[in-house]
């Protein structure tokens, strides 16, 4: 007669469901994870484009003087810029921002937060160098002595810089997911595929952003990258959901809380955000639109698909961060 038995817990503990200020992470962190993923994705795509063009002659036409095509030049600048903005949100999330220096007084190998703070710093030098090298013609126009010198020293090694950056970009992309997946106390996050999911999502969002920014003749290549990334992302999110559903009661419950959850986020339930906004309008519909466009069908508003992908990527971060916290702690 277990079915009629009851188990009721009453607690005087003040918890986030009663007092919202007790939430662990609010909007800053999902926004940072989105921008971090975007920055990582941009670095991966731009670096690979540089290497492909220089080593194999594949990709849109260079713009003379060794400067790559326009989208790669813009993407290379946006990557460190967006990560910088993301880090600002990370900084604002700290309860005591002035103690941020404490991150850099130690390396704690078991702490993903410590590893992340160092990876973030390691990201900038080469990402900025790449942004400078791909825009060297414009930079030389300013005729600033130290910048000219840096370009002189490194301009013959752009392929190597790009090759290293491709790996750093993958590292940043994975890290944004790993940051959450190490927390075994939060059953929804405790999935090692989260790193891959955030990496592919970052690449698809970055491809969408480059698709928006690229001139007409460069668009097809980014549309192709985007469509492929979305396809892999659909597979990865499928594995993430299946992994949760087939897990222990804990992980199963946490996954159901996300994909069928009725908790309200900005006026809509988790379930609707997940299936309607992230899966349908953030992945499936843009994939169809880009497929149709590649097949020669005229799409009246070609910018709609990439905007939907970007919005979907943002919503994914919000959903995972929030749903991971609103489900009860490890039981």
């Amino acid at each position, binding site marked *: *007669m277990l079915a*009629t*038995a*009851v*188990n*009721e*817990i*009453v*607690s*005087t*503990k*003040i*918890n986030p469901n009663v*007092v919202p*200020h*007790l939430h*662990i*992470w609010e909007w800053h962190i999902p926004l940072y994870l989105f921008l971090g993923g975007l920055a990582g994705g941009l670095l991966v795509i731009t670096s690979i484009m540089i290497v492909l063009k220089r080593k194999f002659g594949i990709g849109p036409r260079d713009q003379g003087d060794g400067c790559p095509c326009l989208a790669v030049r813009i993407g290379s600048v946006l990557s460190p810029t967006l990560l910088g903005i993301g880090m600002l949100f990370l900084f604002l*999330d*700290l*309860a*005591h*921002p002035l*103690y*941020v220096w*404490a*991150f850099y*007084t*130690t390396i*704690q190998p*078991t*702490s*993903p*937060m*410590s590893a*992340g*703070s160092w990876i973030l710093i390691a990201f900038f030098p080469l990402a900025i160098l790449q942004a400078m090298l791909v825009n060297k013609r414009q930079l030389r126009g300013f005729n600033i002595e130290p910048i000219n010198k840096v370009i002189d020293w490194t301009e013959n090694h752009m392929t190597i810089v790009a090759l290293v950056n491709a790996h750093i970009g993958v590292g940043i992309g994975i890290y944004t997911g790993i940051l*959450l997946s*190490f*927390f*075994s*106390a*939060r059953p929804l*996050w405790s999935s090692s595929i989260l790193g891959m999911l955030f990496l592919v999502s970052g690449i698809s969002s970055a491809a969408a952003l480059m698709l928006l920014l690229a001139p007409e003749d460069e668009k097809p290549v980014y549309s192709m990258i985007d469509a492929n990334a979305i396809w892999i992302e659909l597979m990865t999110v499928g594995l993430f959901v299946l992994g949760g559903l087939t897990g222990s009661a804990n992980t199963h419950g946490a996954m159901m809380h996300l994909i069928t959850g009725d908790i309200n986020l900005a006026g809509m339930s988790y379930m609707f955000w997940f299936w309607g906004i992230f899966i349908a309008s953030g992945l499936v519909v843009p994939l169809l639109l880009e497929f149709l466009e590649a097949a020669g069908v005229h799409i009246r508003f070609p910018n709609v698909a990439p905007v939907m992908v970007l919005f979907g990527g943002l919503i994914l971060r919000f959903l995972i961060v929030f749903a991971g*916290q609103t489900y009860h*702690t*490890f*039981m």
Partner: protein
Amino acid sequence: MVIDTRVCVGCSACVYACKQENNVPEGYCRDWVVQESGGEYPKLTMENRSERCQHCENAPCVTYCPTRASHYAEDGTVQINRSLCTGCKACMAACPYDARYVHPEGYVDKCSLCKHRIEQGLETACVSICPTGSLNLVDFNNMDEKTKELLKGKIVYRQKEHAGTEPSLQWISASNKPGA
């Protein structure tokens, strides 16, 4: 700490003593009382218990702290160095017991097992106020006869042991009560 849930009446004196002793700001708590009822009428059971940081021996909050702010003190308790805490909240996400909160002054706070009192040879505020003797401060490496007697033959459990955190708090189950 050994918490004898057989005699806990859920009065919350421990919560208020802690709040006053440690200047816990309004809207926050370092310890709290849980009342768990279960079973099927008329065979119902109820357990009251006072909960707090478990001062784990393998504490995920210490593992995940990026700045060494969360650390093991010499006496084995888990403590927070406020001057190293950035308030990144990784420890809060890592704690399976949800024992931590962000203090409005900008650091993460939790039960310190009244370290300042123990150093003076006193008991923790919660233990000293408990009217039924449910809360007992125990050194598990050096257990006295009274504690051994208290635990003898009883069903004693630790919370979420399968989380692998080696929690240092032990509960004498209410199922030890006669007739339970």
